[in-house]
């Protein structure tokens, strides 16, 4: 019996010949990521497994918006210094962990990455078995270098065609979530002839969002685009990608024709079976538009937003908040003029952080407000008041809607 990508990666990491759905294995973790929130309730280990396989990334609440967060930063710095952790991304080199992981090639093909953040499945864009685990488990990995996995069945997505102009990874994901719903206790695998037409930023959006359909892992096949991205970001060449075996066993195989996609919007609450083609929701008035998060605060998102807002204005009564996913994205966006364009159009471009995505700071919603977001999660209360409504769409749709003040197909704004 052949293996899927994740089965193959976990077989290697656990030193087994073969691993299949239903097995439980203990696997060595190649990279374990600690984020700032970890340090708000920090048990302070006496010894750790390997400083080289550990990185610390400050992201959710930087620069510190509260004393609790500031104290966490103090502990993180002290811990990094004590154990000589060189991959320490402090304020100034900071960014949302999944973006920083990508920029520094910390999620390598065929390897295993862990982090407390639930969107750690983002690393699957790079053919890595990355997933979120709880803080207690991340501490355990920090100490012992390994953890256990119950291997879930895999759903295979065959991509065909190429996305039309104006359609991006977010639309692909919302189509998937709206059509097939939750994948609880399943792994998602993406490949097929259409993969080559999906740039790395879109793959990461899709992999990141796997958490929203409750998937364990969300992994893409390795190809030359992935290789080029990793080489550009300083990856060592000491990795072995995991290709799925032709006779791998899947719980289901589904096809997505990228060429047939239209802009999608998720209604408030969840994305599963709750995302629809834009005509069904168009014209809903919005007060806040948010572009950001680990899924859609990438440089390409800022470029798309700047393109749409160039020479246009954010509608009266609408706030457009743009939060770059990392300091690196921010610096590039300044250099390339995107920040100027966005600010001239009336957008607020913030420091890079998780910020409004999890309703913690810099764009929290009030009761009765309607938000259209390109971030990851539209749960009730996610971005502030439980009496606010959160719709979710691509960056292009959010930017276009900021111009009209209503949920709008971005292709109409550009037409």
């Amino acid at each position, binding site marked *: 019996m052949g293996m899927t990508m994740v089965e193959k990666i976990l077989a290697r990491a656990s030193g087994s010949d073969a691993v299949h759905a239903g097995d*439980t294995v203990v696997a060595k973790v190649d990279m374990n990521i600690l984020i700032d*929130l*970890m340090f*708000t*309730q*920090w*048990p*302070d*280990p*006496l*010894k750790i497994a390997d400083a080289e396989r550990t990185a610390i990334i400050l992201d959710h609440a930087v620069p510190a918006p*509260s004393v*609790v*967060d500031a104290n966490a930063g103090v502990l993180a710095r002290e811990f990094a210094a004590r154990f000589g952790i060189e991959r320490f991304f402090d304020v100034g080199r900071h960014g949302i962990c999944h973006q920083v992981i990508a920029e520094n090639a910390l999620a390598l093909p065929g390897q295993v990455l862990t982090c*407390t*953040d*639930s969107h750690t499945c983002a690393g699957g864009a790079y053919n890595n078995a990355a*997933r*979120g*685990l*709880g*803080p*207690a*488990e991340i*501490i*355990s990995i920090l*100490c*012992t270098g390994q953890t*256990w996995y*119950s291997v*879930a069945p895999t759903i295979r997505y065959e991509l065909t065609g190429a996305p039309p102009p104006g359609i991006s990874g977010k639309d692909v994901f919302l189509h998937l979530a709206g059509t097939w719903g*939750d994948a*609880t*206790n399943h792994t998602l695998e993406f490949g097929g002839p259409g993969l080559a037409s999906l740039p790395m930023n879109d793959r990461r959006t899709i992999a990141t969002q796997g*958490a*929203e359909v*409750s998937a*364990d892992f969300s992994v893409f096949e390795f190809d030359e685009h992935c290789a080029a991205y990793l080489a550009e970001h300083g990856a060592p060449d000491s990795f072995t990608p995991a290709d799925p075996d032709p006779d791998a066993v899947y719980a289901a195989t589904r096809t997505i024709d990228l060429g047939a996609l239209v802009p999608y919007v998720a209604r408030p609450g*969840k994305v*599963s079976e709750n995302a629809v083609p834009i005509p069904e929701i168009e014209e809903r008035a919005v007060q806040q538009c948010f572009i950001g998060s680990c899924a859609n605060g990438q440089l390409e998102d800022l470029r798309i937003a700047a393109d749409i807002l160039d020479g246009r204005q954010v509608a009266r009564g609408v706030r457009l908040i743009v939060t770059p996913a990392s300091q690196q994205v921010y610096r590039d966006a300044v250099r390339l003029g995107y920040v100027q364009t966005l600010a001239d159009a009336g957008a607020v471009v913030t420091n890079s952080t998780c910020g409004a995505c*999890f*309703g*913690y700071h810099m764009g929290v919603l009030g009761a009765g407000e309607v938000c259209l977001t390109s971030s990851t*999660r539209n*749960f*009730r*209360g*996610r971005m*502030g008041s*439980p009496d606010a409504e959160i719709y979710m769409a691509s960056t292009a749709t959010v930017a276009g809607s900021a111009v009209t003040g209503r949920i709008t197909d971005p292709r109409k704004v550009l037409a």
Partner: protein
Amino acid sequence: MSHTITGRTWVIGDSIDTDALYPGFAMRLPVPEAATHVLYDLRPGWAAQVRPGDILVAGRNFGIGSSRQVAALLRYLGISALVAEDFNSLFHRNAINHGLPAVTVPGVSGMVTEGDVITLDLEAGLLRNGDTEAAFSPVPPMMLEILDAGGLLPRLVAAGYLADPSGKDRP
């Protein structure tokens, strides 16, 4: 810990997410205070009504969302076990790793009415509610060991990795 648990039930619905269980604003608060906000919007005042030993019964896809330490809050409130039609795997691991038993029992929402007193036998994989019974996959020995230790952190303390013996419900 005993592998048989009896308790009064609370029943909640499908896809109860971690933001509903542990709202963002509560993340700044210490555990005892944060625990008062569990299900703040869905079941206002619920936390104050929970009695030690109570069991929380949920529907499909329980705990979709983030790795927020919901289990720490539920344990603080005295919840003794979680039962659901199925769990988000991150949430499920979090519960076990905090020493909170969590079992998947397909069909459970149809056989428990809030307030029923049910018994779970983790080793045998049996749920009993009055005269009705349902079988579930027994909790594997590896997870029972974690539960017996009171979670992962006490184990790390015992192994000399952590100094803080009060780390049981942290981080």
